[in-house]
């Protein structure tokens, strides 16, 4: 099977690309400048996505899968035919060629194969987030985290390097990536959630257990976020990501603040999106998308349910730990007042065992949380991003439909003008029609593009999900094994002592 060989070539070494890019720049779809840190999720249209920036490696990828590329046919033959079919009334949709042909020529596995080869050859990067440090005082204080990257990939200047980042930097990174990639169908991992309550406690300077726990929770979440982001072979090469990981100074991402104007704009857009979604009814002709959407929806429901149960388990285990500690103290007191010496000793031993149990319960509760609960929470949020991507596809489809309608209108207008004697207006109408036809073509291409991307992304996402769950759950079970082993050790000693009463 023919690999997207050229794609591999481009994304290898940054240096070589400059010349290639300049050559291809004219041919690429991009022509407009990148929006920077735009909160507008309705986003610039697809065209505005990429700029001529030589650093933007993404241009190549899009180029690669353009309609004219020969490689495309072999891999993506499920897509619609390149020709624009004549406009029919808006209610009908140009159906991509699917059905039994789909199964023959386009199978998931062949795609996965390619993806895997690509990934395995060059993916070797590990990111850790550590050393949370409070910077500043009072309400302006913030936590700075050390982000360390260890890699052998030639994409980076060094093999090991660190930078200091604060939480809003992470949010800023996500915001940039989302605005660039979400509406063309890439599943961008969501950033960890803000927590005003949690952060305020830290800012106010309470050095207690709950604020320490909060910081640790956040540190772990940030680490997982970065690892998920770089595991995505497209996102890894994004200049914003590279800058985030490498450069010592990063401009403050102010627009990530909840109450900033950008934040408010985001909220308004989210609301508008929600309304739009309710009114758009897409004639889905590709069963694959409907199937996948349903699959993700039911997965979402199940994961949420499971998440709630696991959170409850964490809570109860912490309670168990506290109650066990209290019982241990009580048993020790009882042992003290017992006047039979051997029994008194046994009761003290009981108190000791229960103290150990308390510690074990606490450790297990942490494992419950970090290995199981957080995994589920992450995936609930990821599924929201997946849903967003499917929604963007619908929006893209709608745009295409709207253009078609507009074209039709213009054609009708032109037809009317034919019977009048306004030759200049007629010419204008004809010109407009030509433009409109171009737009319709472009919109159709965009729709096909996002559909293709989503198919790839879903495949990648599912693979990641399988790996993630397997690894985490195995680690979790191992934590349970460790706990049981410790329990056995403790009760063994206890039994030995009590038997001598």
């Amino acid at each position: 099977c023919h690999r997207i060989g050229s794609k591999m070539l481009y994304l290898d070494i940054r240096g070589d690309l400059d010349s290639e890019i300049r050559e291809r720049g004219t041919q690429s779809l991009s022509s407009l400048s990148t929006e920077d840190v735009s909160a507008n999720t309705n986003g610039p249209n697809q065209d505005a996505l990429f700029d001529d920036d030589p650093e933007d490696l993404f241009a190549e990828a899009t180029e690669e899968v353009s309609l004219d590329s020969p490689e495309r046919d072999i891999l993506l033959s499920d897509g619609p035919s390149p020709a624009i079919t004549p406009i029919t009334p808006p209610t009908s949709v140009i159906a991509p060629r699917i059905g039994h042909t789909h199964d023959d020529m386009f199978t998931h596995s062949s795609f996965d194969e390619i993806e895997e080869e690509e990934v395995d050859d060059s993916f070797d990067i590990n990111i850790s987030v550590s050393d949370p440090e409070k910077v500043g005082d009072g309400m302006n204080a913030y936590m700075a985290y050390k982000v360390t990257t260890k890699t052998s990939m030639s994409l980076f200047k060094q093999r090991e390097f660190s930078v200091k980042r604060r939480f809003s930097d992470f949010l800023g990174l996500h915001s940039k990536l989302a605005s660039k990639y979400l509406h063309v169908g890439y599943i961008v991992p969501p950033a960890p959630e803000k927590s005003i309550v949690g952060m305020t406690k830290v800012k106010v300077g309470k050095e207690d257990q709950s604020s320490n726990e909060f910081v640790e929770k956040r540190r772990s979440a940030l680490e997982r976020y970065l690892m998920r982001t770089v595991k995505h072979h497209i996102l890894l090469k994004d200049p914003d990501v590279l800058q985030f990981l490498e450069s010592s100074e990063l401009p403050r991402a102010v627009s990530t603040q909840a109450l900033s104007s950008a934040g408010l704009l985001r909220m308004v857009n989210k609301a508008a999106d929600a309304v739009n979604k309710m009114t758009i009814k897409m004639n889905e002709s590709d069963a694959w998308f409907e199937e996948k959407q349903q699959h993700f929806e039911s997965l979402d429901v199940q994961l949420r349910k499971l998440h709630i149960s696991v959170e409850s388990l964490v809570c109860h285990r912490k309670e168990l730990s506290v109650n066990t500690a209290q019982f241990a103290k009580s048993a020790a007191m009882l042992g003290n007042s017992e006047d039979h010496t051997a029994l008194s000793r046994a009761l003290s031993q009981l108190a000791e065992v229960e103290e150990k149990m308390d510690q074990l319960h606490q450790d297990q509760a942490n494992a419950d949380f970090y290995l199981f609960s957080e995994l589920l929470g992450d995936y609930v949020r990821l599924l929201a991003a997946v849903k967003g991507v499917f929604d963007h596809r619908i929006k893209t489809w709608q745009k295409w439909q709207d253009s078609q309608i507009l074209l039709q209108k213009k054609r009708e207008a032109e037809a009317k003008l034919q019977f009048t004697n306004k030759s200049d207006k007629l010419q204008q109408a004809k010109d407009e029609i030509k433009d409109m036809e171009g737009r319709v073509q472009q919109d159709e291409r965009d729709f096909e593009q996002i559909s293709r991307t989503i198919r790839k992304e879903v495949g990648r996402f599912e693979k990641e999900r399988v790996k993630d769950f397997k690894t985490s759950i195995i680690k979790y079970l191992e934590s349970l094994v460790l706990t049981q082993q410790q329990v056995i050790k403790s009760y063994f000693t206890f039994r030995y002592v009590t038997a001598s009463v």
Partner: protein
Amino acid sequence: MMEGLDDGPDFLSEEDRAPRAVNVDLQTDATLQVDISDALSERDKVKFTVHTKSSLPNFKLNEFSVVRQHEEFIWLHDSFVENEEYAGYIIPPAPPRPDFDASREKLQKLGEGEGSMTKEEFTKMKQELEAEYLAIFKKTVAMHEVFLCRVAAHPVLRKDLNFHVFLEYNQDLSVRGKNKKEKLEDFFKNVVKSADGVLVAGVKDVDDFFEHEKTFLLEYHNRVKDASAKSDRMIRSHKNAADDINRIASSLYTLGTQDTTELCKFFLKVSELFEKTRKVESRVAADEDLKLSDLLKYYLRESQAAKDLLYRRSRSLVDYENANKALDKARSKNRDVLQAETSQQICCHKFEKISESAKQELIDFKTRRVAAFRKNLVELAELELKHAKGNLQLLQSCLGFMKTNT
């Protein structure tokens, strides 16, 4: 619905039939053996079948059974307490009232919520609650039995007439529960007693043995109370965690059946694992309840009974001292001397009798206590080890399977 729990003689398994003297180390005596062979739970009461085997001549038959309810046990207990003759003994504590309210409420709620959950969930929860009901039921039977066994093992109490009537008379004893007036009287009696108890406790005892016992019991009783409460809380948390694991297992099962990737096999295996470990965790909680909580609760009641004995002794000591004072006064005034003398003699005799038997009772109490704690703690350790090993094995075999299949 609960009637079905009484499946006749098979209801109590073999292991349950043996004297369930969990918290008391009693010598079974062939001359008088008492146990509860059967029990039936009805709407708002429990009927215990008390079964007696005896070679004593005062019973008509060698083996016989009667049906008794909780109130009748209380009547018997109270008759011991009120009997002056038994002032010098630790009266075996009365069994607590059977309390199925919480369990019944849960089952009712489940019935009401039947429409809102899947059939599997409903059956599962129903099984859980029925098991809980059964556990409470078994416990109350055990506690009533222990009471009877303690009485039967006591050299003096076993000869009590009321006890024999209780065992043999196969009609209803027509013991009504206390009415409001009587309950109020009891309340006041208790208030007076505790106030009195404080006064009496202040009196320093000449006898070292009793002085030591007094201090010891006071502190011990309080600490057992605390330990019992904390143990209950700990076990409840344990049960809650086990319930969570149950829900997690169900969710994982649903995920496993719905997933389209190779994760489905994975989820189903883990779901199966958690189902099993959950059962083990529930048993751990149940065993801790039995061996630890019940033990502490029982000795809370027994130490109270021992305290009551000390109180009665102190009371009689005070009476004795008062009688002495009265005698001196009578002698000095040379009036009613004979009366005072007899009164003083009675008090003296009473006090000495109580002191003598109390000493023995307290020594026995300690022996019983040490034996019961030892037995239960060893059994607790054994059970915890057994369950932990079981859990470990389940976890390791599942992990092994998963690692080879990845």
